[in-house]
């Protein structure tokens, strides 16, 4: 499920590992492991959020958005911080399914771009 990346998006830094570097005391193996886990788990979260939207299961949606929110904040994916907070809040209110679908669409595409960039950065560092 590789998204096509516009050149302008690929040149912009979509995430920041400053906080992870700080917390992991600069241990590169640990940083790489965390990024790998983020790549795996964020895609699972996206699938679960989509399922929640399809079934209008607000509880599942809120739960999964909350899990993903922690990771988005940790990786400082600025573009998605407000987005994921709004998804969590709307899911909690069990309201605005149409708005949730729009928000999810942006979340999904931007996470994919971020994953692509992380993969590219990790390969370049090898």
């Amino acid at each position, binding site marked *: 499920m590789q998204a096509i990346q516009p050149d302008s998006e690929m040149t912009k830094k979509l995430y920041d590992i400053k*906080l*992870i*570097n*700080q*917390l*992991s*005391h*600069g*241990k590169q193996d*640990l940083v790489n*492991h*965390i990024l790998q*886990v*983020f790549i795996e*788990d964020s895609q699972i979260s996206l699938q679960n959020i989509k399922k929640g939207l399809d079934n209008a299961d607000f509880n599942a949606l809120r*739960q999964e958005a*909350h*899990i993903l*929110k*922690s*990771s988005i*904040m*940790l990786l400082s994916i600025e573009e998605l911080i407000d987005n994921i*907070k709004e998804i969590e809040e709307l899911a909690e209110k069990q309201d605005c399914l149409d708005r949730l679908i729009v928000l999810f669409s942006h979340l999904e595409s931007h996470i994919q771009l971020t994953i692509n960039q992380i993969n590219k950065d990790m390969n370049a560092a090898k």
Partner: protein
Amino acid sequence: MSQPNKRQPPGKIFSGSKLSDFADHGKTNMLIIIEGEQIIYSSPLYMQMMGYSEGDSISATQNNVWENIHQDDQDKIKKIIREDIKKKKPYSIYALRVRTRQGHYIWREDYASYQYDATGKHIRTYVICRELPSSEKNEKEIITNELNKFKVLIAEDNRVNMILTKDLLEHILPDCQIIEARNGQEAVNLYKQQLPDMVLMDIHMPEKDGYQATREIRIYEDKSGLKKRPIIAITARIHEGERERCLESGMNDYLPKPIQEADFNYTINKFVNIYTDNNK
């Protein structure tokens, strides 16, 4: 003579599980600062302990800090410090014998706190030390053994957070045992099975949230006549009044996500110190 960096008073950087043993012991604490293996500062109080008076040349005595350590302990201590730094440990506690100016040996207990920069490079070692009456020589082993058994239950449904929390915890308590729970129900079950000494509790988890899990743990402790273990909330929720809600459900403290290392270390150490003091 080199002086400690005044922008970072040494007293503020110490962290570790046993600092209160030094700070609250009612005995004089003394400070040594080491760069590499070179002593760059030793406090006047340290000099007093070693039998020097104010009129003595301090620069002459700086060089004697290592030399005054008993030959059998000198290499051992240097090895401990080298290995601790290699493993990026935050602190170490050890006992050693030092020769005073009058020529007799006294037992000393040291609390060495290692300072690293953001990349993990070691900068300095700050040592506070106190004279150890012979009757207390085995205290180090007793406390260390207690901490080796220290069990922490982490309830967290986000794998990234779990990895980082474990790493931060192992940095402060290298020998502690970590138990992992992926949801609130698992946290309650593992608590009953393992009886950890501390719980780090995410709030928003599947099956059972952190509030409910905490309430059930507190009820279980009451019914079983168990001592209440510290439960610390770690959460990325942003609602007002959440801290109060955590405390109402029976938690002892609250840490927001993303975790800030200084806050994390302070809070964990606070409860480890209480544990250590209660188990003396």
